[in-house]
Protein backbone atom coordinates (compact mmCIF):
# COMPACT_ATOMS: atom_id res chain seq x y z
CA UNK A 1 0.00 0.00 0.00
CA UNK A 2 1.25 3.44 -0.97
CA UNK A 3 -0.17 6.62 0.55
CA UNK A 4 0.42 10.25 -0.33
CA UNK A 5 -1.02 12.71 2.14
CA UNK A 6 -1.04 16.37 1.32
CA UNK A 7 2.22 16.07 -0.61
CA UNK A 8 3.72 19.41 -1.66
CA UNK A 9 6.71 19.68 -3.99
CA UNK A 10 8.34 23.01 -4.76
CA UNK A 11 11.13 23.44 -7.25
CA UNK A 12 12.70 26.90 -7.47
CA UNK A 13 9.73 28.52 -5.67
CA UNK A 14 7.34 26.91 -8.12
CA UNK A 15 4.69 24.74 -6.50
CA UNK A 16 4.61 21.66 -8.71
CA UNK A 17 2.39 19.63 -6.39
CA UNK A 18 0.05 21.57 -4.16
CA UNK A 19 -1.09 19.01 -1.62
CA UNK A 20 -1.67 15.70 -3.38
CA UNK A 21 -3.38 12.90 -1.46
CA UNK A 22 -4.33 9.44 -2.66
CA UNK A 23 -3.93 5.78 -1.84
CA UNK A 24 -2.78 2.87 -3.96
CA UNK A 25 -4.17 -0.38 -2.59
CA UNK A 26 -2.89 -3.80 -3.65
CA UNK A 27 -4.05 -5.92 -6.60
CA UNK A 28 -5.54 -3.11 -8.64
CA UNK A 29 -4.84 -1.41 -11.95
CA UNK A 30 -4.53 2.37 -11.50
CA UNK A 31 -4.30 4.88 -14.31
CA UNK A 32 -2.92 8.34 -13.55
CA UNK A 33 -4.19 10.91 -16.07
CA UNK A 34 -3.99 14.66 -16.56
CA UNK A 35 -2.72 17.31 -18.98
CA UNK A 36 0.98 17.96 -19.66
CA UNK A 37 2.72 19.56 -16.71
CA UNK A 38 0.02 18.57 -14.22
CA UNK A 39 2.56 16.74 -12.02
CA UNK A 40 2.11 13.08 -12.97
CA UNK A 41 5.82 12.34 -13.40
CA UNK A 42 6.59 14.21 -10.17
CA UNK A 43 4.14 12.01 -8.26
CA UNK A 44 5.85 8.86 -9.55
CA UNK A 45 9.26 10.26 -8.60
CA UNK A 46 7.99 10.77 -5.05
CA UNK A 47 6.85 7.17 -4.88
CA UNK A 48 10.24 6.02 -6.22
CA UNK A 49 12.07 8.26 -3.69
CA UNK A 50 13.81 10.11 -6.52
CA UNK A 51 12.29 13.34 -5.16
CA UNK A 52 11.36 14.34 -1.62
CA UNK A 53 8.29 16.30 -0.50
CA UNK A 54 8.66 19.82 0.88
CA UNK A 55 5.72 19.18 3.16
CA UNK A 56 3.16 16.45 3.60
CA UNK A 57 3.93 12.79 3.70
CA UNK A 58 4.70 9.92 1.32
CA UNK A 59 4.37 6.41 2.63
CA UNK A 60 5.88 4.04 0.07
CA UNK A 61 7.79 0.79 -0.29
CA UNK A 62 11.48 0.20 -1.01
CA UNK A 63 12.18 1.30 -4.63
CA UNK A 64 13.83 -2.02 -5.34
CA UNK A 65 10.52 -3.78 -4.75
CA UNK A 66 8.95 -1.74 -7.56
CA UNK A 67 9.38 -2.37 -11.25
CA UNK A 68 9.68 1.19 -12.57
CA UNK A 69 9.76 2.62 -16.09
CA UNK A 70 10.57 6.35 -16.06
CA UNK A 71 9.20 8.65 -18.77
CA UNK A 72 12.58 9.32 -20.36
CA UNK A 73 14.39 6.08 -20.88
CA UNK A 74 18.03 6.11 -21.91
CA UNK A 75 19.26 3.99 -24.78
CA UNK A 76 21.53 1.45 -23.15
CA UNK A 77 24.64 1.40 -25.31
CA UNK A 78 26.26 -1.88 -26.39
CA UNK A 79 23.33 -4.14 -25.46
CA UNK A 80 21.09 -6.16 -27.75
CA UNK A 81 17.32 -6.28 -27.23
CA UNK A 82 17.56 -9.75 -25.70
CA UNK A 83 20.36 -8.66 -23.36
CA UNK A 84 18.33 -5.69 -22.08
CA UNK A 85 15.39 -7.94 -21.16
CA UNK A 86 17.74 -10.53 -19.66
CA UNK A 87 19.06 -8.00 -17.15
CA UNK A 88 15.57 -7.94 -15.63
CA UNK A 89 15.18 -11.72 -15.68
CA UNK A 90 18.53 -12.38 -14.07
CA UNK A 91 17.64 -10.23 -11.10
CA UNK A 92 14.59 -12.17 -10.15
CA UNK A 93 14.23 -15.68 -11.46
CA UNK A 94 11.57 -17.31 -9.32
CA UNK A 95 10.35 -20.17 -11.46
CA UNK A 96 12.13 -23.26 -12.66
CA UNK A 97 12.19 -22.18 -16.32
CA UNK A 98 15.59 -21.37 -17.72
CA UNK A 99 16.33 -17.73 -18.50
CA UNK A 100 16.25 -18.49 -22.21
CA UNK A 101 12.75 -19.97 -21.93
CA UNK A 102 11.50 -16.95 -20.02
CA UNK A 103 13.09 -14.65 -22.58
CA UNK A 104 11.48 -16.52 -25.47
CA UNK A 105 8.08 -16.42 -23.79
CA UNK A 106 8.34 -12.66 -23.21
CA UNK A 107 9.50 -12.11 -26.77
CA UNK A 108 6.42 -13.90 -28.04
CA UNK A 109 4.09 -12.03 -25.70
CA UNK A 110 5.44 -8.62 -26.74
CA UNK A 111 5.98 -9.47 -30.43
CA UNK A 112 9.75 -9.13 -30.25
CA UNK A 113 10.66 -12.52 -31.73
CA UNK A 114 12.71 -11.20 -34.63
CA UNK A 115 14.34 -8.44 -32.62
CA UNK A 116 16.19 -10.20 -29.80
CA UNK A 117 19.56 -10.21 -31.56
CA UNK A 118 19.27 -6.62 -32.79
CA UNK A 119 21.19 -3.77 -31.24
CA UNK A 120 18.81 -1.95 -28.87
CA UNK A 121 19.70 1.50 -30.18
CA UNK A 122 18.84 0.42 -33.76
CA UNK A 123 15.17 -0.43 -33.25
CA UNK A 124 12.20 1.97 -33.57
CA UNK A 125 10.69 4.02 -30.72
CA UNK A 126 7.56 1.87 -30.56
CA UNK A 127 9.66 -1.30 -30.54
CA UNK A 128 11.80 0.11 -27.74
CA UNK A 129 8.71 0.74 -25.63
CA UNK A 130 7.63 -2.86 -26.15
CA UNK A 131 11.08 -3.98 -25.00
CA UNK A 132 10.80 -1.83 -21.85
CA UNK A 133 7.35 -3.20 -21.18
CA UNK A 134 8.74 -6.74 -21.36
CA UNK A 135 11.58 -5.55 -19.13
CA UNK A 136 9.11 -4.27 -16.52
CA UNK A 137 7.02 -7.42 -16.54
CA UNK A 138 10.11 -9.68 -16.50
CA UNK A 139 11.10 -8.46 -13.04
CA UNK A 140 8.14 -10.33 -11.54
CA UNK A 141 7.56 -7.72 -8.86
CA UNK A 142 4.23 -7.15 -7.13
CA UNK A 143 4.23 -3.43 -7.88
CA UNK A 144 4.69 -2.01 -11.39
CA UNK A 145 4.89 1.74 -12.06
CA UNK A 146 5.14 3.08 -15.60
CA UNK A 147 5.28 6.64 -16.95
CA UNK A 148 3.60 6.86 -20.37
CA UNK A 149 4.88 3.44 -21.38
CA UNK A 150 2.92 3.19 -24.62
CA UNK A 151 3.13 6.72 -26.02
CA UNK A 152 4.95 5.61 -29.20
CA UNK A 153 3.17 2.32 -29.70
CA UNK A 154 0.62 2.22 -32.54
CA UNK A 155 -3.06 2.27 -31.65
CA UNK A 156 -3.88 -1.31 -32.48
CA UNK A 157 -1.07 -2.75 -30.39
CA UNK A 158 -1.88 -0.36 -27.56
CA UNK A 159 -5.27 -1.96 -27.06
CA UNK A 160 -3.58 -5.36 -26.89
CA UNK A 161 -0.97 -4.22 -24.36
CA UNK A 162 -3.58 -2.67 -22.09
CA UNK A 163 -5.45 -5.95 -21.98
CA UNK A 164 -2.12 -7.64 -21.23
CA UNK A 165 -1.54 -5.22 -18.34
CA UNK A 166 -5.05 -5.99 -17.13
CA UNK A 167 -4.16 -9.70 -17.07
CA UNK A 168 -0.99 -8.91 -15.14
CA UNK A 169 -3.02 -7.03 -12.52
CA UNK A 170 -5.46 -9.93 -12.29
CA UNK A 171 -2.50 -12.17 -11.39
CA UNK A 172 -2.46 -10.22 -8.13
CA UNK A 173 -0.07 -7.40 -8.98
CA UNK A 174 -0.54 -3.67 -8.53
CA UNK A 175 -0.10 -1.36 -11.51
CA UNK A 176 0.16 2.42 -11.60
CA UNK A 177 0.34 3.67 -15.19
CA UNK A 178 0.53 7.27 -16.38
CA UNK A 179 -1.34 7.65 -19.64
CA UNK A 180 -3.09 10.06 -22.00
CA UNK A 181 -5.36 7.30 -23.35
CA UNK A 182 -8.52 8.16 -21.42
CA UNK A 183 -10.60 5.64 -23.36
CA UNK A 184 -8.14 2.83 -22.55
CA UNK A 185 -8.10 3.89 -18.90
CA UNK A 186 -11.90 3.87 -18.81
CA UNK A 187 -12.00 0.41 -20.33
CA UNK A 188 -9.21 -1.39 -18.49
CA UNK A 189 -8.36 0.41 -15.23
CA UNK A 190 -9.89 -0.40 -11.84
CA UNK A 191 -9.25 3.13 -10.59
CA UNK A 192 -8.49 6.46 -12.25
CA UNK A 193 -6.66 9.32 -10.56
CA UNK A 194 -6.70 12.62 -12.41
CA UNK A 195 -4.33 15.50 -11.73
CA UNK A 196 -4.62 19.11 -12.80
CA UNK A 197 -2.22 21.91 -11.88
CA UNK A 198 -0.60 19.82 -9.17
CA UNK A 199 -3.89 18.84 -7.50
CA UNK A 200 -5.99 15.68 -7.53
CA UNK A 201 -9.24 16.58 -9.31
CA UNK A 202 -10.64 13.05 -9.48
CA UNK A 203 -10.01 9.77 -7.69
CA UNK A 204 -12.42 6.91 -8.27
CA UNK A 205 -13.69 4.19 -10.56
CA UNK A 206 -14.01 4.61 -14.35
CA UNK A 207 -17.81 4.69 -14.19
CA UNK A 208 -17.68 7.59 -11.72
CA UNK A 209 -15.14 9.33 -13.97
CA UNK A 210 -17.60 9.36 -16.87
CA UNK A 211 -20.28 11.11 -14.83
Amino acid at each position, binding site marked *: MITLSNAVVEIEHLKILQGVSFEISPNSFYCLVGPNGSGKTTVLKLIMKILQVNSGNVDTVDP*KDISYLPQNLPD*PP*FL*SVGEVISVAIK*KNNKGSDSRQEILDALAEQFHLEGLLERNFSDISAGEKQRVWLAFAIAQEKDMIIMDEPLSSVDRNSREEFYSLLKEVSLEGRTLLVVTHDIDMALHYADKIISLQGGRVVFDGSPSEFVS
Partner: protein
Amino acid sequence: MAVVAATFVFAIVGVFAGPSDLSFQDTYNGLMRSDDGVMTTVVWSIRIPRVILSVLVGASLGLSGVLIQLSTRSPIGDPNLFGIGGGAVIFMAAVTVGLISIPVYGVFLGAMASSLIVALFLTALSSNRNLTPVKFAIMGIAVGALMVSLGTSVISYGRVFPSQVIGLVAGSFSASSWQLIYFLTCSLFACLAGSLVFSSRLLPITLGDDIAKSLGVNPIKTRIYLMSIAAALAGSSVYAGGLIGFVALISPHIGRRFVGNSPVSLILISAFTGGLLTLLSDQVARLLFAPIELPVGLATTMLGAPLMMYLAWRYK
Protein backbone atom coordinates in the same frame (compact mmCIF):
# COMPACT_ATOMS: atom_id res chain seq x y z
CA MET B 1 39.74 -19.40 -26.01
CA ALA B 2 41.25 -18.34 -29.34
CA VAL B 3 42.40 -15.09 -27.77
CA VAL B 4 44.02 -16.91 -24.84
CA ALA B 5 45.79 -19.33 -27.18
CA ALA B 6 46.99 -16.52 -29.45
CA THR B 7 48.40 -14.67 -26.44
CA PHE B 8 50.53 -17.68 -25.55
CA VAL B 9 51.71 -18.25 -29.11
CA PHE B 10 52.77 -14.66 -29.58
CA ALA B 11 54.36 -14.58 -26.14
CA ILE B 12 56.61 -17.45 -27.21
CA VAL B 13 57.35 -15.78 -30.54
CA GLY B 14 58.24 -12.62 -28.63
CA VAL B 15 60.77 -14.48 -26.54
CA PHE B 16 62.47 -15.92 -29.59
CA ALA B 17 62.43 -12.85 -31.83
CA GLY B 18 64.64 -9.90 -31.10
CA PRO B 19 67.22 -7.45 -32.34
CA SER B 20 70.19 -9.04 -30.59
CA ASP B 21 70.59 -11.53 -33.41
CA LEU B 22 70.50 -14.65 -31.30
CA SER B 23 69.83 -17.85 -33.18
CA PHE B 24 66.92 -20.04 -32.22
CA GLN B 25 69.37 -22.48 -30.65
CA ASP B 26 71.05 -19.70 -28.67
CA THR B 27 67.73 -18.47 -27.36
CA TYR B 28 66.70 -21.97 -26.46
CA ASN B 29 69.92 -22.47 -24.55
CA GLY B 30 69.47 -19.13 -22.82
CA LEU B 31 65.99 -20.14 -21.82
CA MET B 32 66.90 -23.54 -20.45
CA ARG B 33 70.36 -23.05 -19.00
CA SER B 34 71.28 -20.67 -16.26
CA ASP B 35 74.99 -20.56 -17.02
CA ASP B 36 75.04 -19.38 -20.60
CA GLY B 37 76.29 -15.86 -19.97
CA VAL B 38 74.90 -13.26 -22.34
CA MET B 39 72.13 -15.47 -23.75
CA THR B 40 70.71 -16.19 -20.33
CA THR B 41 70.80 -12.50 -19.50
CA VAL B 42 69.10 -11.44 -22.72
CA VAL B 43 66.37 -14.05 -22.47
CA TRP B 44 65.66 -13.93 -18.75
CA SER B 45 66.31 -10.29 -17.95
CA ILE B 46 65.14 -8.59 -21.12
CA ARG B 47 62.89 -10.60 -23.37
CA ILE B 48 60.77 -12.65 -20.97
CA PRO B 49 60.05 -9.78 -18.55
CA ARG B 50 59.16 -7.57 -21.46
CA VAL B 51 56.73 -10.06 -22.95
CA ILE B 52 55.06 -10.72 -19.60
CA LEU B 53 54.89 -7.04 -18.72
CA SER B 54 53.33 -6.07 -22.03
CA VAL B 55 50.60 -8.68 -21.49
CA LEU B 56 49.97 -7.51 -17.90
CA VAL B 57 49.82 -3.84 -18.87
CA GLY B 58 47.59 -4.56 -21.85
CA ALA B 59 45.24 -6.68 -19.73
CA SER B 60 45.08 -3.88 -17.15
CA LEU B 61 44.15 -1.43 -19.88
CA GLY B 62 41.55 -3.71 -21.46
CA LEU B 63 39.88 -4.28 -18.10
CA SER B 64 40.07 -0.59 -17.23
CA GLY B 65 38.44 0.26 -20.57
CA VAL B 66 35.47 -2.05 -20.15
CA LEU B 67 34.80 -0.75 -16.63
CA ILE B 68 34.91 2.88 -17.77
CA GLN B 69 32.74 2.24 -20.81
CA LEU B 70 30.04 0.52 -18.78
CA SER B 71 30.15 3.01 -15.87
CA THR B 72 29.92 6.07 -18.11
CA ARG B 73 27.82 4.46 -20.87
CA SER B 74 30.31 5.87 -23.35
CA PRO B 75 31.58 3.62 -26.16
CA ILE B 76 34.81 5.63 -26.37
CA GLY B 77 35.64 5.25 -22.68
CA ASP B 78 39.41 4.91 -22.27
CA PRO B 79 41.44 5.88 -19.17
CA ASN B 80 44.23 7.35 -21.26
CA LEU B 81 41.89 9.33 -23.49
CA PHE B 82 39.95 10.70 -20.49
CA GLY B 83 42.98 11.80 -18.47
CA ILE B 84 42.90 9.07 -15.82
CA GLY B 85 46.23 7.71 -17.02
CA GLY B 86 47.23 11.37 -17.45
CA GLY B 87 46.95 11.92 -13.70
CA ALA B 88 49.58 9.25 -13.22
CA VAL B 89 51.70 10.79 -15.99
CA ILE B 90 51.85 14.09 -14.07
CA PHE B 91 52.91 12.24 -10.94
CA MET B 92 55.49 10.10 -12.76
CA ALA B 93 56.84 13.21 -14.50
CA ALA B 94 57.25 14.89 -11.11
CA VAL B 95 59.11 11.81 -9.89
CA THR B 96 61.24 11.64 -13.04
CA VAL B 97 62.37 15.26 -12.78
CA GLY B 98 63.08 14.85 -9.08
CA LEU B 99 60.27 17.01 -7.66
CA ILE B 100 59.09 14.04 -5.63
CA SER B 101 61.45 11.51 -4.16
CA ILE B 102 59.98 8.42 -2.51
CA PRO B 103 60.72 4.66 -2.56
CA VAL B 104 59.59 2.56 -5.54
CA TYR B 105 56.45 1.13 -4.03
CA GLY B 106 55.55 4.69 -3.06
CA VAL B 107 55.88 5.70 -6.70
CA PHE B 108 53.67 2.78 -7.71
CA LEU B 109 50.98 3.70 -5.18
CA GLY B 110 51.35 7.39 -5.99
CA ALA B 111 50.72 6.74 -9.69
CA MET B 112 47.52 4.85 -8.83
CA ALA B 113 46.41 7.56 -6.38
CA SER B 114 46.94 10.31 -8.97
CA SER B 115 44.79 8.42 -11.45
CA LEU B 116 42.18 7.93 -8.76
CA ILE B 117 41.84 11.69 -8.23
CA VAL B 118 41.05 12.27 -11.91
CA ALA B 119 38.72 9.25 -12.00
CA LEU B 120 36.71 10.45 -9.02
CA PHE B 121 36.37 13.87 -10.60
CA LEU B 122 35.01 12.24 -13.77
CA THR B 123 32.70 10.03 -11.70
CA ALA B 124 31.22 13.09 -10.03
CA LEU B 125 30.65 14.54 -13.50
CA SER B 126 29.03 11.40 -14.87
CA SER B 127 26.58 11.23 -11.95
CA ASN B 128 25.07 14.55 -13.03
CA ARG B 129 21.69 13.77 -14.53
CA ASN B 130 21.95 16.43 -17.22
CA LEU B 131 25.17 15.06 -18.67
CA THR B 132 24.53 12.72 -21.60
CA PRO B 133 27.20 10.14 -22.45
CA VAL B 134 28.22 12.23 -25.47
CA LYS B 135 28.72 15.39 -23.39
CA PHE B 136 30.59 13.32 -20.84
CA ALA B 137 32.93 11.93 -23.50
CA ILE B 138 33.69 15.43 -24.77
CA MET B 139 34.53 16.59 -21.26
CA GLY B 140 36.60 13.46 -20.67
CA ILE B 141 38.67 14.15 -23.77
CA ALA B 142 39.20 17.74 -22.60
CA VAL B 143 40.37 16.50 -19.20
CA GLY B 144 42.66 14.03 -20.97
CA ALA B 145 44.27 16.74 -23.09
CA LEU B 146 44.70 18.93 -20.00
CA MET B 147 46.41 16.14 -18.04
CA VAL B 148 48.88 15.36 -20.82
CA SER B 149 49.76 19.03 -21.23
CA LEU B 150 50.24 19.42 -17.47
CA GLY B 151 52.44 16.31 -17.44
CA THR B 152 54.46 17.63 -20.36
CA SER B 153 54.85 20.97 -18.57
CA VAL B 154 56.33 19.23 -15.56
CA ILE B 155 58.71 17.37 -17.87
CA SER B 156 59.76 20.55 -19.70
CA TYR B 157 60.40 22.16 -16.36
CA GLY B 158 62.75 19.36 -15.36
CA ARG B 159 64.88 19.06 -18.53
CA VAL B 160 65.07 15.27 -18.44
CA PHE B 161 66.36 12.94 -21.15
CA PRO B 162 64.11 12.77 -24.18
CA SER B 163 63.94 8.97 -24.09
CA GLN B 164 62.44 9.02 -20.58
CA VAL B 165 59.91 11.60 -21.66
CA ILE B 166 58.88 9.65 -24.73
CA GLY B 167 58.64 6.49 -22.64
CA LEU B 168 56.20 8.24 -20.34
CA VAL B 169 53.92 10.00 -22.81
CA ALA B 170 54.12 7.53 -25.71
CA GLY B 171 54.60 4.25 -23.85
CA SER B 172 57.59 1.96 -23.55
CA PHE B 173 58.47 -1.41 -22.07
CA SER B 174 62.22 -1.00 -22.48
CA ALA B 175 62.66 -0.71 -18.70
CA SER B 176 60.88 -4.00 -17.94
CA SER B 177 61.97 -5.84 -14.85
CA TRP B 178 60.79 -8.66 -12.61
CA GLN B 179 59.96 -6.11 -9.95
CA LEU B 180 57.57 -4.29 -12.28
CA ILE B 181 55.99 -7.62 -13.13
CA TYR B 182 55.48 -8.32 -9.46
CA PHE B 183 53.74 -4.95 -8.92
CA LEU B 184 51.57 -5.30 -12.00
CA THR B 185 50.56 -8.87 -11.21
CA CYS B 186 49.39 -7.79 -7.77
CA SER B 187 47.37 -4.83 -9.03
CA LEU B 188 45.88 -6.67 -12.02
CA PHE B 189 44.69 -9.68 -10.06
CA ALA B 190 43.33 -7.60 -7.19
CA CYS B 191 41.41 -5.42 -9.66
CA LEU B 192 40.21 -8.44 -11.64
CA ALA B 193 38.85 -10.00 -8.45
CA GLY B 194 37.20 -6.69 -7.51
CA SER B 195 35.55 -6.42 -10.93
CA LEU B 196 34.26 -9.97 -10.81
CA VAL B 197 32.72 -9.39 -7.38
CA PHE B 198 30.71 -6.49 -8.81
CA SER B 199 30.06 -8.05 -12.22
CA SER B 200 26.32 -8.44 -11.66
CA ARG B 201 26.00 -4.65 -11.35
CA LEU B 202 27.72 -3.85 -14.64
CA LEU B 203 24.69 -4.14 -16.92
CA PRO B 204 22.06 -2.58 -14.61
CA ILE B 205 24.01 0.70 -14.43
CA THR B 206 23.99 0.99 -18.23
CA LEU B 207 20.17 1.23 -18.09
CA GLY B 208 20.17 4.61 -16.34
CA ASP B 209 20.12 5.49 -12.65
CA ASP B 210 16.37 5.22 -12.03
CA ILE B 211 16.11 1.73 -13.47
CA ALA B 212 19.33 0.64 -11.76
CA LYS B 213 17.82 1.63 -8.41
CA SER B 214 14.63 -0.29 -9.07
CA LEU B 215 16.87 -3.30 -9.82
CA GLY B 216 18.41 -2.90 -6.36
CA VAL B 217 21.71 -1.45 -7.60
CA ASN B 218 22.99 1.84 -6.18
CA PRO B 219 24.28 3.53 -9.34
CA ILE B 220 26.43 6.17 -7.68
CA LYS B 221 28.23 3.78 -5.33
CA THR B 222 28.71 1.29 -8.13
CA ARG B 223 30.21 3.89 -10.45
CA ILE B 224 32.60 5.13 -7.74
CA TYR B 225 33.67 1.58 -7.08
CA LEU B 226 34.16 0.59 -10.72
CA MET B 227 35.88 3.86 -11.66
CA SER B 228 38.27 3.44 -8.72
CA ILE B 229 39.24 -0.01 -9.96
CA ALA B 230 39.65 1.39 -13.47
CA ALA B 231 41.89 4.13 -12.05
CA ALA B 232 44.10 1.69 -10.14
CA LEU B 233 44.53 -0.28 -13.36
CA ALA B 234 45.28 2.82 -15.42
CA GLY B 235 47.73 4.23 -12.86
CA SER B 236 49.62 0.97 -12.58
CA SER B 237 49.79 0.63 -16.36
CA VAL B 238 51.28 4.12 -16.68
CA TYR B 239 53.74 3.28 -13.93
CA ALA B 240 54.90 0.20 -15.82
CA GLY B 241 54.67 1.28 -19.45
CA GLY B 242 53.71 4.93 -19.78
CA LEU B 243 50.72 6.26 -21.66
CA ILE B 244 49.53 3.63 -24.15
CA GLY B 245 46.63 4.71 -26.31
CA PHE B 246 43.65 2.86 -27.82
CA VAL B 247 44.13 -0.52 -26.12
CA ALA B 248 41.55 0.22 -23.43
CA LEU B 249 39.21 1.73 -25.99
CA ILE B 250 39.08 -1.09 -28.51
CA SER B 251 39.65 -4.23 -26.43
CA PRO B 252 36.09 -4.32 -25.01
CA HIS B 253 34.61 -3.79 -28.49
CA ILE B 254 36.66 -6.60 -29.98
CA GLY B 255 35.96 -8.86 -27.01
CA ARG B 256 32.23 -8.20 -27.16
CA ARG B 257 32.14 -9.58 -30.71
CA PHE B 258 33.26 -12.94 -29.36
CA VAL B 259 31.27 -13.27 -26.12
CA GLY B 260 28.46 -10.66 -26.16
CA ASN B 261 27.70 -8.75 -22.97
CA SER B 262 27.58 -11.47 -20.36
CA PRO B 263 29.54 -9.57 -17.68
CA VAL B 264 32.02 -12.16 -16.42
CA SER B 265 32.96 -13.23 -19.95
CA LEU B 266 33.17 -9.62 -21.08
CA ILE B 267 35.53 -8.72 -18.23
CA LEU B 268 37.82 -11.66 -18.96
CA ILE B 269 37.85 -11.27 -22.73
CA SER B 270 38.54 -7.53 -22.50
CA ALA B 271 41.57 -8.22 -20.32
CA PHE B 272 42.90 -10.95 -22.61
CA THR B 273 42.29 -8.93 -25.77
CA GLY B 274 44.14 -5.98 -24.23
CA GLY B 275 47.04 -8.23 -23.30
CA LEU B 276 47.25 -9.72 -26.77
CA LEU B 277 47.02 -6.36 -28.58
CA THR B 278 49.71 -4.81 -26.41
CA LEU B 279 52.01 -7.78 -26.74
CA LEU B 280 51.66 -7.68 -30.54
CA SER B 281 52.13 -3.93 -30.64
CA ASP B 282 55.24 -4.11 -28.52
CA GLN B 283 56.74 -6.75 -30.79
CA VAL B 284 56.03 -4.55 -33.79
CA ALA B 285 57.49 -1.52 -31.99
CA ARG B 286 60.59 -3.45 -31.05
CA LEU B 287 61.27 -5.19 -34.33
CA LEU B 288 59.97 -2.92 -37.10
CA PHE B 289 63.03 -0.66 -37.26
CA ALA B 290 65.37 -2.80 -35.13
CA PRO B 291 67.70 -1.98 -33.50
CA ILE B 292 65.84 1.33 -33.15
CA GLU B 293 62.71 0.96 -31.01
CA LEU B 294 59.45 2.81 -31.50
CA PRO B 295 57.45 3.80 -28.43
CA VAL B 296 54.84 1.07 -27.96
CA GLY B 297 52.06 3.67 -27.71
CA LEU B 298 52.71 4.64 -31.31
CA ALA B 299 52.30 1.02 -32.38
CA THR B 300 49.07 0.53 -30.40
CA THR B 301 47.69 3.69 -31.96
CA MET B 302 48.68 2.56 -35.46
CA LEU B 303 46.98 -0.76 -34.80
CA GLY B 304 44.09 0.67 -32.76
CA ALA B 305 43.08 3.71 -34.78
CA PRO B 306 42.17 1.83 -37.98
CA LEU B 307 40.44 -0.89 -35.94
CA MET B 308 38.47 1.79 -34.11
CA MET B 309 37.48 3.41 -37.40
CA TYR B 310 36.30 0.05 -38.68
CA LEU B 311 34.26 -0.57 -35.51
CA ALA B 312 32.75 2.94 -35.65
CA TRP B 313 31.83 2.31 -39.28
CA ARG B 314 30.00 -0.87 -38.32
CA TYR B 315 28.43 0.67 -35.19
CA LYS B 316 24.90 1.92 -35.86
